[in-house]
Every structure is written in C-alpha cells, then in structure tokens.
C-alpha cells in the first residue's frame, strides 16, 4: 500500500475538504417554506404531532385542533365555546328524547361536492365498524345499536340508529334519552366523512392533496414532525367571514422550545406552555399569557380491593392530609384550582358540585384528624403505613408526588415514589396492578357524566381502583334515563356526594388551560373547552 494515499492528506487539504463538504451539503438544501410572518398566516405551536388526519383515528386534543379546522360536525363551537349550529341548520327533538331530526344547511366539501346526510351516515357507520378499529368509537354508544355494531354482536350496519331521510335531512335514534347529545355532536367522532372520496381512493383519501373537508381550512402539506400547513377553504359555506388565509401547526412537543419560539416571534400561539415558565411569563408577557379553567381533573386513585386501601379510614386520612392550596399556589403556580370533588366546576349545567365534608376544616386540624383515623385503622409510629405511589413520567407529576409524599410524612406514612413511562403506567393501572397511583381525566364532552362514569362498576379497566357501590351505580343509571336536566343533575350530584364519602380517589386539582396568544391575534376567547377554531380568529396589522 502506498503511503502517499490522500487518506490523511495534508492538514490544509483536510480542512479544505471539510469546508467544501459543509458548503456543498448546506447549499443543496431546498428552499422550502420559511417561517417568517407572512401576512395572514397564523403560526401555532401545537403540543404534539398528529397521528393522523382521519377524524376516526385521532384521540388527542392537539389533533382535534387540526381535524376540527378541516371538518365541521352537525354542531360546532363558537369562539367562546358555546355550541352552535354547524353543518346542521336546525334540529328537532322528539318528546321522548329518543329521536333527533337534523336539517342540514346547503354547503359543500372543499372540492365542491355537496355535503349530504349520507356523508354523516357513512361517517357513523365507518367509525363504528369493527374493522376501522377506532379508539373513540365508544363515544357514539348513545346511538341505537352503536355498541352492538361496534362489538360485533350486530352485523347489519343498517341497524344503526342513523339514517338519511333525504339528502338534507338526517334522523338519529338513541338508545335512551341523552341530554348531552347535541354537545356530543361537536366531537370529531361525529364528523361527516366524504363518502365519494373514500370510495374513490380508499385509505389514501387522507393524504394531503386528496383529503377534503367541509370545514374552514384544508390541509395543503404535512411534513411529519415538522409542520401541518392548512389553507383557507374557498368552498366553506361561511368563507367570507374567515379572515386568516393560512394556518401552520408546528408539533412542538418540547414546550420550552415552543415558548422560546413565541418569544422570538416565530409563532403566534402556543398551546399548553410549561408551568415552570409562569413566573417569567407573568412578569414579561402578561397580556399574552392566557390562563383559564379547563375541563379536566387530576387525582390519585386507590386500588380499593387491596388492603389497606380497602379501609375507608386509610383513604380518608390520606386524602385529608393533602394540602391542595400548597400544591396549586406554591408548586404549580399557574392558577390551578384545588379540588375537593371530581367533576370540575362549570361542567355543563352541573351547578354547585358536592364536596368532601372536611373541605373547610383548617389544614392542621385535618392532619390531626387524619392521624387519628390512621391510628384507628391500626397504623402508627410502630406500624407505619408503607406503600408505593406511582406516577407517569412528567416534571409536574414528579413535583406533586414529592410534595404530597412530604405531606404524608407528617402522618408517619412512608410513600415510596415510583415513576414509569406512560405505557407501563396505564397498562398497570388498567390491570389494577398498583396501590396508589396518579391519574387524570380530560372531558370528552362537556357533561359531568363523562367524569362520574369512571367509577361505575361496569366501567371495567378504566375504573382503575375497582370501586364498586351499588347505590352509586343505581343513581347513575337513573340519571342516564332522566330527561329533565335539573333532575338529572341532582341525581348525579347525589351520586358524587356518595362517592366522596367513600373516597376511592383523592381529588387534587382541576386543570387550567395555559396558552400563549400574541396580541396580534384577535377574536380569541378563553373558554373551558379550550377550542379556538381558526375561522373565528384574525390577525391585526
């Protein structure tokens, strides 16, 4: 082998070669879309990358933002989150509360094809078809035979309680009166699906360029893990009132990066900024910092079938010893609301929710009472209560767990912290392999039933703690069948009050939505559902 091969070359040549490589690679880069603030382009730091553009395959609120800009259900939300007519102009409900008849407005898909009642029926059938394997199909179980079709016991799709009377009229029949049904129809599980596109293209119908929607925007480009770019749909029925021409969603999972992008003016909106930024933001960007109550609860759940957590005294003691104000005011500091019950305030028409009876007892007194309860249950300095507290990986979950474990230490309780990744965490929760664990629930629809159903005996794996109370189940079942709204709320309040005497879970706080919104964005209204469809927004000059 010759020793003069340029493998090592001269230092100068190496350097030159290196620079040439650099330049070459750099210059062959595409021009691509820059993120400079062009006129009328809304740039959003979304909190995650969508799994899909198909309304039947998504399940996260970050996906909801994209899909919800593209499609419109029978009903939709106004800028302030209230339910307004969407694809349906008007509707009537039969006296027994079982039949809903919708009159669709005249409008088209983004490719000009008219939207008909058939598209809705097609959508419902598709999401409930077992072959689609849609995770969220169960939301539509209030519809007659939906559950039977979805679990395969009913094989005739025609049996579904949804039919197109004529192209402009859709009739939906329910299993039983469901007072939140109109609200439910805003959810992406009820979006219409362009039958003509699916029949023409099969699974490829969702690809950008093929996909059509009846919403204000259509997807123009999707670079995975980089951006989803949407342009105004000129065929949208209300297009003249849509101000923003283009909206780009960046999947900023790293939330501190999203906040930096906001500060540098690279995005106009950031959804769900990291709570540790709050002090900085309140001081430097107060007008942009939007905090508003949300529809989600954070709690610790007990495995009620495993001693000593089958003893209500132990559960109550641990629940009483949590100082919720300290957690919301000192650890999180983003305005979360201390919770003394499960269902968040302002959920539906629930009104004043019940609370645990010791909610107003001063903290130190509660600690003493808790110690007494534990002693009664047989725990004390010579027999300390020891168990494992589980949480899934997240900075906030960790901080809260550390804080609560320290609070429990006053009772002589030794809680060992155990942090696992999300999959393992929920896997073990659903197979009831835990003692005490952190859990959270974000409402699918704006109704207390969505929270309270977690504790029914029939709920199965999602009733993580295996709580089972016949009276609770009875009250909930009765509320399901009640059409009068106030009577129904009252029944649910009774059920929750009952549950709170048994404390199968420790309510800790109710979530707030934390968003950064640039002052140049107009039309943004904070609402509990955290829905801010781009069609209501505009950009100031």
């Amino acid at each position, binding site marked *: 082998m010759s020793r003069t091969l340029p*493998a090592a070359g001269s230092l100068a040549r190496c350097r030159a070669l*290196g620079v040439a490589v650099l330049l070459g690679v750099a210059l062959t880069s595409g021009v*691509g879309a820059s993120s400079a603030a062009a006129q009328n382009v809304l740039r959003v730091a979304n909190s995650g990358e969508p799994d899909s*553009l198909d309304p039947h395959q998504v399940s996260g609120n970050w996906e909801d933002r994209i899909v919800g800009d593209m499609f419109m259900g029978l009903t939709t939300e106004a800028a302030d989150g209230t339910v307004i007519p969407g694809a349906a102009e008007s509707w009537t409900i039969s006296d027994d509360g079982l039949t809903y008849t919708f009159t669709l407005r005249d409008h088209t898909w983004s490719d000009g094809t008219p939207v008909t009642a058939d598209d809705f029926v097609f959508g419902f059938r598709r999401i409930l078809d077992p072959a689609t394997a849609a995770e969220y199909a169960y939301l539509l179980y209030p519809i007659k035979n939906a559950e039977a079709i979805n679990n395969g016991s009913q094989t005739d799709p025609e049996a579904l309680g949804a039919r197109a009377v004529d192209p402009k009229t859709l009739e939906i029949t329910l299993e039983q009166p469901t007072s939140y049904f109109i609200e439910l129809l805003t959810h992406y599980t009820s979006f219409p699906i362009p039958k003509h596109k699916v029949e023409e293209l099969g699974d490829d119908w969702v690809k950008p360029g093929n996909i059509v929607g009846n919403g204000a925007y259509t997807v123009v480009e999707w670079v*995975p893990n980089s951006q989803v770019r949407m342009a105004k749909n000129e065929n949208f029925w209300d297009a003249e009132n849509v101000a923003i021409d283009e909206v780009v969603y960046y999947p900023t999972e790293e939330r501190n990066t999203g906040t930096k992008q906001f500060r*540098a003016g*690279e995005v106009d909106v950031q959804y769900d900024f990291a709570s540790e930024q709050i002090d900085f933001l309140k001081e430097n960007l107060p007008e942009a910092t939007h905090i508003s109550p949300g529809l989600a609860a954070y709690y610790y759940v007990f495995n009620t079938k495993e001693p000593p957590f089958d003893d209500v005294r132990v559960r109550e003691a641990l629940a009483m010893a949590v100082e919720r104000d300290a957690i919301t005011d000192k650890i999180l500091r983003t305005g979360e609301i201390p919770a003394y019950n499960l269902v968040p305030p302002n959920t539906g028409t629930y009104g004043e929710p019940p609370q645990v009876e010791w909610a107003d007892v001063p903290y130190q007194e509660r600690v003493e009472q808790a110690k007494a309860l534990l002693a009664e249950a047989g725990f004390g300095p010579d027999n300390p209560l020891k168990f494992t507290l589980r949480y899934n990986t997240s900075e906030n979950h960790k901080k809260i767990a550390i804080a609560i474990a320290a609070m429990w230490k006053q009772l002589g309780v030794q809680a060992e912290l155990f942090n696992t990744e999300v*999959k393992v965490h929920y896997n073990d929760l659903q197979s009831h392999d835990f003692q005490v664990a952190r859990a959270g629930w974000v409402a699918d629809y704006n109704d207390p039933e969505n929270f309270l159903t977690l504790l029914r005996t029939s709920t199965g794996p999602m009733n993580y703690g295996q709580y089972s109370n016949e009276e609770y189940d009875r009250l909930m079942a009765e509320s399901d069948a009640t059409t009068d709204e106030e009577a129904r709320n009252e029944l649910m309040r009774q059920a929750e009050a009952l549950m709170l005497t048994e404390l199968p879970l420790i309510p800790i706080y109710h979530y707030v939505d934390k968003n950064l919104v640039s002052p140049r964005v107009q039309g943004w209204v904070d609402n509990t559902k955290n829905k801010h469809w781009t069609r209501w927004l505009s950009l100031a000059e």
Partner: protein
Amino acid sequence: MIGYLVRRLMISVPTLLIIITVAFFMMRVAPGGPFDQERALPPEIERNMLAAYNLDAPLVVQYWDYLKGVVQGDFGPSFKYQDFSVAELLLSGFPASLRVGGIAIALAVVIGITLGTIAALRQNSGIDYAVMATAMTGITIPNFVMAPLLTLVLGVYLGWLPVAGWGGGAPQFLILPVIALALPQIAYIARLTRGSMIENLNANFVRTARAKGLRERIVVVRHALKGALLPVVSYLGPATAQIMTGSVVIETIFGIPGIGRYFVQAALNRDYTLVMGTVIVYAVLIILLNLVVDLLYGLLDPKVKQR
C-alpha cells in the same frame, strides 16, 4: 482486499438477519402494547385493533410475515402514525437527520483533529491545556443544556437565528443544531487524536523521519497523524452511524423532522414496526461503517493486514 470486502459483505446478510430476529422478539417481551394508553379501550375495540394489525397472530407467524415484507421493501404500517407506513416515515425523516448529522460530523472531524494535533504538538504547555479545555466544553456542558442555551442567546435574545424548526432544511435552521451536535464530537475526536498523536510523535519511525531532515509539517501529517488516526477512526465508525441517525435530544429541542426521535419515541409507544425500521436502518449503517473503518485500518497503518 477485494476478497475481504466480498466476504464481509456476504456475512453482513446473516448478521442483519440475526439483528432483526433478536430485536423483534426482544421488543415483544416488554410490557405494554401499542394501544395501551390513558383511556382503556373497550375489549372489543382492542381486539379489533390488534386484529387489524395482525397482532393477534402467533408471534412466530408475525415474525415470518414481517421478514417476508422486509425482503420486498415493505416495512409495515406505523401503529402510532396511522397515515404513514414505516417506509414513508423513514424516507421522509432520514434525509433531515443525515443532513444535520453529516455536516456536524464533518465539522467535528476537521476541528477535532486539528485541535488534537495542535495540543499534541505542544504537549503539556499552556496551549495544550487551553485547546483541550475548549474542546472539552462539548462534553462538560451536556447537550440538553447547550442547546437551550444557544437558542436562548442566539434565537431569543439576539434574534440572529430561528429558535427551532426545519424550513425545508434551509441553512439558517441548520446552524444551531449542527453546532449543538458537533461540540461533543469535537471533544471526543480532539482528545483521542491528542492521545494517540503524542504516542506516535515519539515513535521510532517518526524519529527516523525527523532524523532524515524532513520538514516538520510533513513529518507530522504524513507520518505521525496517519498512524495516530487509528483509534479516532475506530471511534468514528459507530459514532457516525449514531450521529447520522439523529439525536433525539437535538431533534426534539430544535424541531427537526428526523428519525432520531423514533429511536426513543417508537419504543415508548411500543410502535413495533417503526422500531424495527429504525433498527434496520441503524444496523445497515453500522455494518457498512465498521467495514469502511476496517478497510481504512489497512490504509492508515500498513502493518495491519486484513485477511
């Protein structure tokens, strides 16, 4: 040498097969599945989903189906990213990782070797310590500190560069991630170069070259450096594979649509097919790069004979 090359390429096929097999079964032993999440699926739906992806077939059948698919270029659908197949995800992501990683490693090699050589030539002097201290910043400041720091100063405070994003790969989006990626590598390469340069500078053949009166620069570069690069090149084989398949920290912090995040995310999501896809990409790179390194040994040090 051609014979060696051919033999190595041939043995890479069974090697790849072993990798695929071990990885495949290794993944399935882990608890949790692709569809486990906060909301438990009603059992019927979960059954449907498993059936839809053929996940309820016996494991060996799934393995065999997978192998058949791979041979034909079908890496399967992603369980998490429903609209894309694994092949599409890898094809769209790999160029991004490659671009950032390629520039970073090229930069690191040039700067690292230069710094290491300078330090070796002035062993134990002030310059040596200064140069090495600078080189070491890449390791002593972890990348998850360096990256936010750089974005804060250059992106937010000064506004010279975008904080994050890809912009199709335009140069201004590359600068910060490349720097953050290159700095630790500069440290590794500089230290390895320095260490083995010092050894070589005192070696007999170098003394001979000096005694012959050759210019110092030629002595250094032609003679000492070539031999000294052996450990550097050994290190660079796997390091290049790792850099080119992206760094999950860098890609997440800078919002780069590469495949680096898949190495972590896909595992945490139990997205089996995507994990397998990344394993195959990485395996091919490792096998090829280690082969290149082994061939380079022969060029750098003539006493090394590859049989």
